[in-house]
């Protein structure tokens, strides 16, 4: 199966260093303290944040900082073969590494004994859902007003037909040679999430990292744009909201 044609174009017409179309919307849910929706190629992802709120069960409370918990979940019909509801081993691992990545950027020491809960639901999946989910989650955290060092853009780089390629689709992932999801802090360039499986030489790895950084910068802009749009809208709505204020604390 040939995934890149003689003109260097991929099955969906993209160049090797081109992202799929990405749309980010902040503040899409009423009940959550913060939320974001991301459409990324054929991925559809929604993220919600609750907290800082009282941490249950209590024995998990940390007197020095907030606990950051994450649940990444694929809904039953987000993939071609129906996924039985409930966490599988893959989603447990992804939840763990996303929580670890987010904890670093949140000023958790401001909110001792609380928990900050991040929920990521994959409504439609087409490769790259952990990166789309993490991208959405940091926007949702900002939407919830949780103080952070920076937003966290994420993207997967891969290897297909012996070429290093940005942002694999499901087809490319299935028939490709390597997958390397990564997330960074744009302001400092630090790497927060990195996994790899497949086969890459060190040279290919170095090239992949470069591609990933450039893409993360673009995604970072989209994240900021989404929050700016949300903020602009909010100013208009503020008066109305003030009439019947409702906070999560009241629930």
């Amino acid at each position, binding site marked *: 199966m040939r995934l890149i044609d003689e003109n260097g174009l991929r099955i969906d017409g993209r160049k090797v260093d081109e992202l799929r179309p990405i749309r980010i919307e902040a503040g899409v*849910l*009423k*009940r*959550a303290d913060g939320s974001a929706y991301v459409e990324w190629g*054929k991925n*559809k992802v*929604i*993220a*919600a944040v*609750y907290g800082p*709120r009282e941490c249950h069960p209590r024995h998990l409370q940390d007197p020095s900082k907030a606990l950051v918990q994450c*649940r990444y*979940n694929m*809904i*039953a*019909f*987000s*993939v*071609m073969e*129906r996924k039985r*509801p*409930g966490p599988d081993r893959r989603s447990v691992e992804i939840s763990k590494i996303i929580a670890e990545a987010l904890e670093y950027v949140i000023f958790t020491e401001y909110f001792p004994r609380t928990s900050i*809960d991040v*929920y990521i*639901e994959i*409504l*439609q*999946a087409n490769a790259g859902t952990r990166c789309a989910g993490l991208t959405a989650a940091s926007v949702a955290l900002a939407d919830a007003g949780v103080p952070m060092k920076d937003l966290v853009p994420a993207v997967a780089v891969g290897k297909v037909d012996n070429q290093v390629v940005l942002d694999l689709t499901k087809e490319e992932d299935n028939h490709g040679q390597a997958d390397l999801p990564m997330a960074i802090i744009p302001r400092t360039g630090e790497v927060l999430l990195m996994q790899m499986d497949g086969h890459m030489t060190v040279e290919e790895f170095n090239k992949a990292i470069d591609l990933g950084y450039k893409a993360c910068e673009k995604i970072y802009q989209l994240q900021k744009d989404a929050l700016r749009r949300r903020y602009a809208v909010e100013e208009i709505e503020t008066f109305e909201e003030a009439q*019947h204020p409702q906070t*999560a604390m*009241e*629930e």
Partner: protein
Amino acid sequence: MARSVMSEIKKDHIHRLLARGKRVDGRNWDEFREITIQTNFTETAEGSARVKLGNTDVLVGVKMETGIPFPDTPDKGVLATNAELIPLASPTFEPGPPDENAIELARVVDRGIRESEMIDLDALCIVPNEEVWICFVDIYVLDYDGNLFDASFLGAVAALKSTIVPASRYGKGEDFKLPIRCLPMSVTAVQIENSILVDPTLDEEKVAAARLTVTTDENGDIRAMQKGLKGSLTVDQIKKIIETSQRLGKELRKLVG
């Protein structure tokens, strides 16, 4: 939901307005919130619908698989309905397997679809006793502001109506539309201090004494009912809700039909 507590101020507000025949959001007692239905939301599903009922947001998807029929219905397809109250949708929803609220929701939606014979399960038999289509209806609540029963039921009906059975993918001939025989509709009302309110918001549900869901078919006949919450209804209240369900069911049906 046991742990959800409401400020006394908000409760009083609802009660005081009701005493004057009014609802917090200005609706009539028999008025639904604004409804939007987006079918085919999820491409990976054989059918799907995202329903917004005011601020309540529900995504329903249908997946079709082949499998073995139940021994007592060897020539019928299988309907399996599941509901997930994911913690994304509310601070009172907890991770984990479906609790009693999710199970009741799934079973009430399932009964409405099953008892109205909406789906022609006979047409979903491939080889009697051996292989039939299994129709999974999965309900995901994304944002919870009351009346999950009607939002989910509307989503399920719309998703099923849009479902294409992927027969070719399974080597079972050409794809075909899921055979639908009718469009049942469910209408839910609550009783608060003897007032009846249709399509309750979350705040209204919290102060309500009793809830009744009535599912009717195109003839106005009753196909399923479920009383809930820790209070009572009079027979007259039940009859009023049935009548209202027949009437509003017709309006709702137009949204899907």
